[in-house]
């Protein structure tokens, strides 16, 4: 399950268009004179993200230590199971068709101004009308209500914390504290503080909106080069989604799956985030210096 959470964080970091906060952040970076496009984002993110994608499953594997590790017969068994399943059933075709249409509509959502949530309502409606899903099935999904409630509550409280000025206050306070540090140390400290503050945020996009501008501005005033700092903060905006179950709405499905306890999620989240921060700072910084010249 945790692979899913970590994977979403890294795939988001790889592409400019993969997470709502990314284009938002690049728009904010333009205010500081840093131009970021689809191509320059991909080049900047490619090396650190690919290294992270290669190492993260391995690290999780060592951390979680699954009882079953080698499954040499699994591929053959899976092929046999596939043969046993035979051709697609009617329900499978309905679900597959619905999903393909939904995915297509989601991919086009931004271009044609289609509401993503309405697409999901439509998809669920089609599944119910066709009988692929019954009301009884929905009644059984009890934990959805719990997830809906806690996420909606934390989301609203976090937005309020921001609206009441708490986040901005912390940002400015931090900037004053870091005044004496050299450019590089200040940059690293800013990125780390930016990540730690994500414990208070329930939306990555909200975090970018609230803090990215403040942190970039503070860094530039302290003498940190603007472009590498902008990229490092934006990458962090993606991978800090692994920090805690509430850190990103993308985690909810995985966190709610009950394969991992809340405590384990926080523990793995903290370890993964620290590891990714180290990777992005150590590999990403020289790489950014190289490609941005």
């Amino acid at each position, binding site marked *: *399950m*945790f*692979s*899913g959470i970590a*994977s*979403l*964080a890294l795939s988001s970091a790889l592409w400019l*268009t*993969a*997470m*709502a906060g990314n284009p938002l952040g690049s728009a904010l970076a333009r205010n500081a004179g840093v131009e970021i496009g689809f191509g320059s984002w991909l080049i900047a993110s490619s090396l650190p993200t690919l290294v992270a994608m290669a190492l993260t*499953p391995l690290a999780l*594997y060592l951390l979680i230590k*699954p*009882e*079953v*590790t*080698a*499954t*040499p017969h*699994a*591929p053959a068994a*899976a*092929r046999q199971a596939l043969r046993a399943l035979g051709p*697609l059933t009617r*329900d*499978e075709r309905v679900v597959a068709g*619905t*999903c393909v249409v939904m995915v297509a509509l989601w*991919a086009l959502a*931004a271009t044609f101004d289609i509401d993503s*949530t309405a697409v*999901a309502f439509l998809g*669920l409606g089609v599944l119910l009308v066709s009988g*692929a*899903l019954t009301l009884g*099935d929905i009644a059984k999904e009890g934990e*959805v209500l719990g*997830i*809906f409630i*806690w996420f*909606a*509550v*934390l*989301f*609203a*409280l*976090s*937005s*309020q*914390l921001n609206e*009441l000025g708490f986040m901005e*206050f912390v940002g400015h306070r931090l900037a004053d504290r870091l005044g004496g540090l050299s450019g590089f140390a200040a940059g690293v400290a800013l990125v780390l503080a930016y990540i730690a503050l994500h414990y208070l945020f329930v939306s990555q996009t909200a975090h970018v909106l609230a803090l990215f501008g403040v942190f970039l501005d503070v860094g530039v005033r302290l003498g940190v080069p603007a472009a590498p700092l902008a990229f490092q903060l934006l990458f962090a905006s993606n991978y800090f989604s692994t920090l805690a179950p*509430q850190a990103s*709405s*993308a985690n909810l*499905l*995985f966190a709610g799956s009950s*394969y991992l306890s809340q405590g384990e999620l*926080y523990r793995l989240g903290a370890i993964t985030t620290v590891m990714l921060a180290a990777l992005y700072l150590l590999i990403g910084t020289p790489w950014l210096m190289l490609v941005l010249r």
Partner: protein
Amino acid sequence: MQRVPDRMRRAAPGIATAVLAIGIWFTPPPDGLPTDAWRLFAIFAAAIFSVVTNALPILTASLVAVAAAVLSGVVAPEKAYAGFSNATILLIVLAFLIARAVVKCGLGARIGHGLVAIFGRSTLGLSYSIFLVDAAIAPAFPSNTARSGVLYPLAVSRLPKPQAQSRAIPHGAGSEVS
């Protein structure tokens, strides 16, 4: 003699949460910060702390937090409940139900078998396959949340694998596979 420290150890996270909440609440806010923002921070920090220390499940902590925030007048009711009409959050709820259909009709299992047939030599290989699929579809999905709805049914339906040796996969292994 054994029981008292035991009970105390179990109650410690809860007591620490209460101390944290009350402590921050009654500390005067730092210069330049509105009192409401400071008190909401007390509530929010205590809620997260209680979940991290296993004092409360996340649902319970959120319920208590929102009740405290609204009843103390720190947050207006309509703001505190705004999350329930948030489009992204509704999308998640719907994605959960749609994922159920993918698993129920057997399509998830079919795709899962397909991936196992290609990557299934080890638990680690399965883990890598998730990263690959995700990275490949990412540029077209401007939302990691929407993408989680695509990946999740694939990950889940890969868990109950049909062959004998992994039917007994308990907790730890299952979490790694997905």
